[in-house]
């Protein structure tokens, strides 16, 4: 069963088309990765799904019901974890979750039980009386999640839930996402961190310039670029690297440098590893290790959009 069905959805702001005729579906039990660079139309699409923005054209169905006609039903079954913290600093963690859960009609003992459950789920059970202003970034992120899950939504939309937090909190959140999914919650997950998406998402859609340019499982997306290989070369120092000469080698599509790693994306059918190494040696770079990887989601994204997610 599809929890979410989007059909030929478009959104215009004046003459600008933010979302251009997209169609996609999210099945029950999936963790659906929704990737797109800033301005690609990802947030606009999410806002329309969450009934926060009027649709210009197209249809959205949540659990089989059109949200234009059944907006309240849709909202009752959706939880949103916005990218920015959407919590009240002057209310305790408990009061925050209680207030937002109350907006979904929960009251009395049931409300109390759900609030305690949500706070415990994100590991803030012992901090329920504390104010968010005293929380670390990771704790605030977790409270942000608790506010979205206390009403037990069928579909949880998480927009960059791990931005700007420490690795420990990130691992906790990723673990929570998996656990929520195991408990039956379908999740739409957006992130700039490709490794997160690779780790947890069962299916992924990539949106660019308002259009979905690829959709499928990780394997299906990587298969789109099987004609490419990634070569990572670790050097002592990349200061003397002549990038243009490296890019001029036959088959090389892209060269990037991250610290002391030279990343080369090349056509897989052309055997050019020797020439690449020779060029690096000619540039007087001391090679420490050479590794050939299968394409990552990052490479897929780069190949399809021509942009990197993190460099926005």
């Amino acid at each position, binding site marked *: 069963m599809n929890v979410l069905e989007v059909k030929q959805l478009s959104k215009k702001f004046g003459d600008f088309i933010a979302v251009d005729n997209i169609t996609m579906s999210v099945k029950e039990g999936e963790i659906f990765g929704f990737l797109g660079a800033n301005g690609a139309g990802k947030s606009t699409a999410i806002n329309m799904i969450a009934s*926060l*923005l009027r649709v210009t054209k197209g249809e959205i169905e949540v659990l089989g019901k059109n949200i234009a006609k059944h907006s309240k039903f849709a909202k009752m079954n959706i939880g949103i974890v*916005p990218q920015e913290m*959407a*919590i009240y600093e*002057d209310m305790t963690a408990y009061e925050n979750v209680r*207030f937002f859960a109350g907006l979904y009609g929960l009251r009395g003992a049931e409300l109390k039980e759900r609030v305690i459950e949500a706070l415990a789920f994100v590991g803030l059970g012992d901090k329920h009386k504390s104010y968010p202003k005293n929380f670390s970034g990771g704790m605030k992120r977790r409270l942000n999640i608790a*506010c979205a899950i206390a009403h037990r939504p069928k579909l949880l939309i998480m927009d960059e839930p791990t931005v700007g937090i420490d690795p420990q909190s990130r691992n906790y959140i990723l673990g929570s996402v998996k656990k929520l999914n195991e408990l039956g919650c379908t999740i739409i997950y957006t992130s700039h961190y490709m490794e997160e998406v690779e780790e947890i998402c069962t299916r992924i859609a990539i949106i660019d310039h308002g259009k979905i340019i690829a959709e499928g499982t990780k394997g299906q997306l990587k298969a789109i670029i099987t004609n490419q290989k990634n070569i990572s070369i670790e050097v002592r120092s990349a200061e003397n690297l002549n990038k243009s000469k490296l890019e001029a080698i036959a088959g090389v599509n892209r060269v990037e440098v991250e610290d002391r790693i030279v990343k080369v994306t090349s056509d897989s059918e052309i055997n050019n590893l020797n020439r690449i190494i020779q060029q690096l040696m000619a540039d007087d770079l001391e090679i420490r290790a050479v590794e050939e990887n299968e394409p990552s989601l990052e490479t897929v994204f780069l190949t399809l959009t021509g942009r990197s997610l993190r460099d926005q």
Partner: protein
Amino acid sequence: MRDTLWLIRKTFMSTFKNYLNLFIYFVFPVMGILLATLVQGGTGDSELKMGIVNHDGGQAITKRMMDSVGKQDSMLVIELEENEIKGRIASGELDAAIIFPTGFAQSLIAHKPADVKIVSIKGAQVTGQVTATLDQHINNMVSVGRAAQGDEAKFIALYDKFQKPGFELAGKKVEDQSVNFNKTNQSIGYLLILMLVSASNLSGILIKERENRTYYRLLSSPISPRTYVLSNIIVNLTMMMLQIAVTLLIMMTIFHVDPGIPYWSMFLILVLFALVAIGLSLVIVAFSSSSSTASGMQNMILIPTSLLSGCMFPLVLMPETMQQLARFLPQYWLLDTFSDLQQGGSFGELSLNLIILIAFSVVFTLIAVYKFGRNNDTRSYI
């Protein structure tokens, strides 16, 4: 309705948690009354507490002079010794003291009055009234003395005759309410400014929630934007009604101000103005993209219009052009309503004023609704 109550409850909780808000809503208006009381000079009661020192011993004429001063409605007289004067005046027990010198009675008989000394630390405000009263009496006595031609027995006989005129003069005291009315109008002027500020603060919650993104989360819940804005308006109106009630209650019970208008009608008219203030605050919110913009607009609109419409000082002190401009402002129409009611006008005669206030409220609200409705983004309220 349950949802609206849930939102109202939360807004009230947040509002009452912030002590600064409470200060603005309830303490500042009281400070306004206090300021108005100080500016308008006390309660309006002008009874002077006078001390009289008689160095002229048991002289009947001097005694009668002292009695005459004591009979004045506006003076409360006690006899004391000269060495007590300083202490009693310094402690505020007395406003002034009159010292009748030795031989004062004889000087009157000789129609050459000796100087009477007046001691006060309040200056002309007090001595002026005392001097006028004494001068009148002494001049009369000098005339009597002139007629008695230095004969004490004749003087007393003529004086007694003078004290019992052959005609009856019926006097009625006309109460001077101007001080009370001015004080009321000044206090209400300050209250209007604070009502406008309070309404803007409470509507400002809408902007703050947009900024801290909680509005995004609220909007993604089954709560409709209309319910959200309505709950804010209800809280705003309730807080302002409380603000008005507390201010009027304190005016009535602590400051004993007689506004010349029944308090319940003042309350109702001020509630009408509260609707205007809420409408205006919603316009500010609708046209502001951030808290700082809203704050700037507040400063640009609220204070100048309040100044211009006579909230801070009487409108008559301003040039004619400014007085004409003030007619375009809601504060002017409220103050004008109060002023007319104090002059004995009826509600029927003031229906135009009330209609204008309602019109201001409706127009402001419609402008805000129109602007909210045109926002084509997630921050839209309607």
